[in-house]
């Protein structure tokens, strides 16, 4: 089956993801525990401009082929732009932004990126941008996105560069058994 070709408009049922890059915590706060099922403000802050970049991960759910396409691009961006490790995506449905139950809707534009200077990994056919409303500053927008993405928390892990599939989360008996089998298999 061919790779998904996304439409020019971002559909409400599409899965979208914000790339997560690892960052060191505060030096003096190593003893604190990070709250479960939360993202951090900087995950949704944009350095370059007012629009917030996202990846379109699939038409109705996370498309494995799209993920395989985007994964090396995430690692590439982590090394080149962020000088850190790529962790995966904070993922949600586009409709959570486009027609939220509460608050004003956020517009998502499809903006594919062509390869630059022969760098194949700079190309991204699944790139999109969330437009920041005029009245929001960067913190306002990041807060809004953080809470939208946390509402139905979904962290889609990256595929590590060594190609090994990351273990599933260890919470729950089924997941622990799955993890145990995964450990045996690998």
């Amino acid at each position, binding site marked *: 089956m061919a790779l998904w070709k996304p439409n020019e408009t971002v559909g409400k049922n599409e899965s979208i993801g914000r790339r997560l890059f690892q*960052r*060191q*915590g*505060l*030096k*003096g*706060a190593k*003893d*604190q*525990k*990070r*709250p479960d099922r*939360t993202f*951090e*403000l*900087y995950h949704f*802050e944009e*350095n370059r401009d007012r629009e917030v970049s996202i990846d379109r991960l699939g038409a109705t759910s996370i498309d494995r082929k799209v993920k395989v396409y985007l994964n090396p691009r995430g690692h590439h961006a982590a090394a080149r732009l962020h000088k850190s490790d790529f962790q995966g995506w904070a993922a949600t449905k586009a409709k959570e932004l486009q027609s*939220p*139950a*509460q*608050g*004003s809707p956020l517009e998502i534009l499809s903006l594919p990126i062509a390869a630059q200077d022969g760098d194949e990994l700079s190309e991204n056919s699944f790139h999109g941008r969330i437009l920041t409303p005029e009245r929001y500053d*960067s*913190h*306002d927008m*990041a*807060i*809004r996105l*953080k*809470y939208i993405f946390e*509402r139905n928390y979904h962290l889609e892990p990256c595929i590590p560069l060594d190609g090994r599939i990351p273990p599933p989360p260890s919470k729950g008996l089924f997941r622990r058994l799955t993890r145990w089998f995964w450990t045996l298999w690998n």
Partner: protein
Amino acid sequence: MITATAQVYSDIRFRQPGSEFSFEIPAAPVQEINDQPLVSDKKLGLISGPAGIAAEWISTITRRIQQSVPGPASGTDVDGWLDSDIAARALGFFDATSDVLPATEPYLYTATNGDLVAEFAGRHGKLTTVIGKAAVNSFAVLEGQIVKTTLNFPFDNVPKARQELMQITKQLHTGAHGIVEA
């Protein structure tokens, strides 16, 4: 009905005060009063008004903030350090407001521009406080709605900010009513 009620009230007349009753205060027995103040009187004299009780987490948070400020021998690694000006402002903010913030210990980290972020969790929502060099912005998410409170440096209106934070903290604990999106 309203007209009738108003009519009734307009008919009420007030008696001249003191026309019917007079009060005489009995003379108090004369007592010798010691002019020397007691030790406890001096301590009470130092209190200017109601004093808030700082949150339990204040000492832990203060230590974490202080230990995140780079010293002279900290090297060139910039990750994980907190700007000393922002640290000072954060300590001042928590000192002024910890008693009206949620009782649960906040989770600390820095935003992309170096501002300090403190995240509190409540039963009905979350409070994220972003402390920068110019202002403290507090964002409460209550039942899906965002409320923003700003306190500018130098602290311009602490009582108003405390009042707003106290209301937000109460709503985080009990649930939101009548909140308008920021």
